[in-house]
């Protein structure tokens, strides 16, 4: 790092949205051939900083220079031209177009003024190979690919533009563990080729593995900059949230819940994705679903919630077999189930509608008399929820899309809590949200369990499973491979079972320390 002239520099950058200050005289220096991690809670200004760099938003004040020359970017295309390419957290792929179309989208190869499809395919194949994703067919439509594959296409697309500065904003949040390893290898190679990489992630272990240099943002300012590895995780987290960071996970109850099971599954199978699953969740219990991404965890939650057709096996509520034909049936009456979906933007919220409308959608039947909504009752319940979850919003009547990611997720949760559900299914609810909000969610989850809810919690973050759950069921290829209980929930046991790398001799040690 020493002596190298900075490739890119931002000085005194400020940006306001209405009355909200997103960036306040922020500085950043990027050097070639290094990986620079940007840390901070959601709302700390990281996203805005990147958007300024990538030409998506124009700063109110401040200067940027590339190779020592002052630059301004009028559009993402202009930033791309200058060699700054961003992989956004919100995917920038076009669903109806093919993988190859997407990879070359900003500058397709042309012959006689028309797009040269052969050259396009060649470029796409090369880029996919460079990103370590040769298994993706260039002609496949993006909308047919699962989230983790799309993310790999996104990375290939960025590489095809031959960037000098590559920005990754939560680029690994949707990836499977195997893909993360591949992407890391690619990123390290790019660093050795002299690229400057900006890496944004909420996962501390990723930053520890990758970064050369770290900058922490808080409240729109860069508060600290230090060489990677020179601060402990705890120190870093304190810098990020600006307060003592001690007990992120609430204490677990000492004795296991002895109540009768509220939710049970017997020999549940569906297509080739769920294989003979039996489990039970008691009132007051938080049961985790672990394993690699895409091993049937989502399908299992959807099966309980009445979304899947052609389900075999039995679902029991309070010990009685039921057949749940739709989410409406699942959430109503004596079942009282709620699902906090994974993709809050499509399955959880109606982004252009107001916070108020979004909050009351799932509970409208409870709030209305003879089909007319009781406004006063609605308001009371909404006030309760906004208070309970500490949702930060400029008002109830602004579009929910204007809230930060963490607050949007709180709205999704609040929306379902308005029904006072007895069974709560959570599908990776903390993906892409900041540490502070995560902590609040963990506490909320325990509070709901203590109040008698049965909680089934899927997470891709092992720390969460270890910190929050009374029991963890590890899925592999649609089947439950192992149940971990209490002290037996360790990172080692989780990972080993998730990868299904140990033989039966290991699996006999259920509940013990692996």
């Amino acid at each position, binding site marked *: 790092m020493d002596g190298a002239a900075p490739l890119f520099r931002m000085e005194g950058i400020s940006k306001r949205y209405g009355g909200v200050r997103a960036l306040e005289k922020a500085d950043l220096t990027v050097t070639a051939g290094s990986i620079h991690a940007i840390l901070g809670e959601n709302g700390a200004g990281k996203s805005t900083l990147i958007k300024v760099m990538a030409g*998506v938003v124009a700063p109110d004040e401040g200067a940027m220079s590339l190779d020592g020359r002052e630059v301004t970017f009028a*559009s*993402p*295309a202009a930033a*791309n031209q200058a060699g700054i390419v961003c992989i*956004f957290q*919100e*995917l*920038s*792929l*076009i*669903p*109806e*177009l*093919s993988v190859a*179309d*997407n990879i070359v*989208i*900003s500058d*397709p190869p*042309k012959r006689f*003024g*028309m*797009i040269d*499809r052969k050259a396009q395919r060649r470029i796409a194949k090369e880029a996919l190979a460079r990103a370590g994703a040769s298994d993706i*067919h260039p*002609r*496949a*439509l993006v*909308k047919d690919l699962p989230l983790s594959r799309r993310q790999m296409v996104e990375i290939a*697309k960025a590489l095809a533009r031959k960037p000098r500065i590559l920005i990754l904003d939560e680029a690994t949040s949707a990836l499977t563990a195997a893909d993360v390893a591949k992407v890391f290898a690619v990123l390290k190679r790019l660093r050795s080729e002299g690229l400057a990489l900006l890496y944004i992630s909420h996962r501390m272990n990723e930053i520890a593995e990758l970064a050369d240099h770290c900058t922490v943002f808080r409240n729109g300012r860069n508060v600290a900059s230090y060489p990677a590895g020179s601060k402990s995780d705890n120190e870093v987290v304190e810098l990020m949230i600006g307060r003592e960071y001690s007990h992120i996970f609430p204490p677990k109850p000492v004795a296991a819940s002895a109540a009768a099971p509220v939710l049970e599954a017997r020999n549940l199978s*569906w*297509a080739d994705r769920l294989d003979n699953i039996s489990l039970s969740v008691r009132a007051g219990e938080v049961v985790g679903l672990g394993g690699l991404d895409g091993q049937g965890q989502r*399908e299992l939650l*959807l099966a309980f919630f*009445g*979304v*899947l*057709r*052609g389900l075999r096996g039995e679902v029991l509520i309070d010990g009685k077999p039921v057949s749940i034909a*739709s989410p409406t049936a699942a959430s109503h009456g004596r079942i009282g189930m709620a699902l906090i979906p994974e993709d809050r933007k499509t*399955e959880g919220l109606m982004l252009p509608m107001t916070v108020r409308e979004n909050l009351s959608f799932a509970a409208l039947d409870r709030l209305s008399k003879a089909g007319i909504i009781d406004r006063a009752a609605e308001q009371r319940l909404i006030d309760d929820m906004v208070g309970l979850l500490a949702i930060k919003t400029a008002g109830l009547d602004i579009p929910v899309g204007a809230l930060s990611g963490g607050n949007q997720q709180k709205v999704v949760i609040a929306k379902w809590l308005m029904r006072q559900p007895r069974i709560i299914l959570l599908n990776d609810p903390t993906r892409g949200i900041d540490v502070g909000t995560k902590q609040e969610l963990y506490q909320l989850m325990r509070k709901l369990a203590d109040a008698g809810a049965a909680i089934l919690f899927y997470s891709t973050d092992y720390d969460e499973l270890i910190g929050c759950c009374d029991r963890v069921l590890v899925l592999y290829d649609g089947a439950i491979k192992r149940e971990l209980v209490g002290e037996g929930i360790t990172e080692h046991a989780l990972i080993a079972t998730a990868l299904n790398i140990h033989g039966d001799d290991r699996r006999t040690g259920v509940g013990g320390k692996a």
Partner: protein
Amino acid sequence: MKDWRYWLAEERGTLLAFGIFIVMFAIYSANHPAGFTANVVQTAANKGVLLAFVAMAQTLVVITAGIDLSVGMIFTLTNCMASWLVVGTGLETTFGVLAVLGTGLICGAVNGAIVIYGRLQPIVATIATGAVFFGLALLLRPVPGGSVNEDLADFLTGRFFGVVPASLVALLVIVLIVWVPFSRSELGRAAYAAGSSETAAYMSGVPIRRGKFLAYTLAGLLAAIGGLFLTFFTYTGEAAYASGNAYTLFSIAAVVLGGVSLFGGKGSAIGAIFGALAFRTIGDLLFVFDFDPLWQPLFQGVILLIAVSLGAFALFRVRNRLEWFL
């Protein structure tokens, strides 16, 4: 998956429309008193290409996730213009054709400018411009009348080598010089991208505005080509309100039959052409089965419902209910 399977998946809508058309046309010509003769094909082609041009125009706009409710009126306006201008000597006729096509381009460009730069909803903007275009048509032709260069008209509506309908050849030529370059150009892809996901396209640095503007403008041109052919078939110009509106609505039906998604980003003008030909054949079927013409709208509606439902059959096989909404 093999390459050809991807190809099949991409062209599914077009192939389905082609299949529907072939089946309908087979039933039609098998039951036609004259059978499958050059005459029957020529008549069917001449009726079909009018809607085919308008449906191609509609396709371009629908791909951008918009809709053009003025195509039928551009079609009517250019018909009225052609009945004044496409007459006289070869040079005068050429000038007239160019003026008519230029008018179509301008109409489309106006639509595009209002929608893209004025940021109005396409549905509202094109209802308004459609009314304006019809008003202009009415000023040009308060009563039906006018004429057209009959040599040119007969040439383009007749048959080549005694068998190939000239109008189909014209349609093919237009596909080759308008649709194929558009669909393979960078701006054409930008139109698809904007229709599929405008924010993702913007983030990727795609020239969204120019792509959409081109789509609207070419839509105007294609509608004008349709208007020109209408003049060639009828030898007159008429500001017919009902017919203009019918063409607009039929073009939407044809586009849907042709596998073009009204949500944007998906489909091809080739599919829409077969959709248009199939839609026209529905009407002709009535004729060969000797139905009372009073039954036509009802019959046409029912067949259309059945045809568009074919595309929805896949939903019955969906096992994850969330896929219903994709």
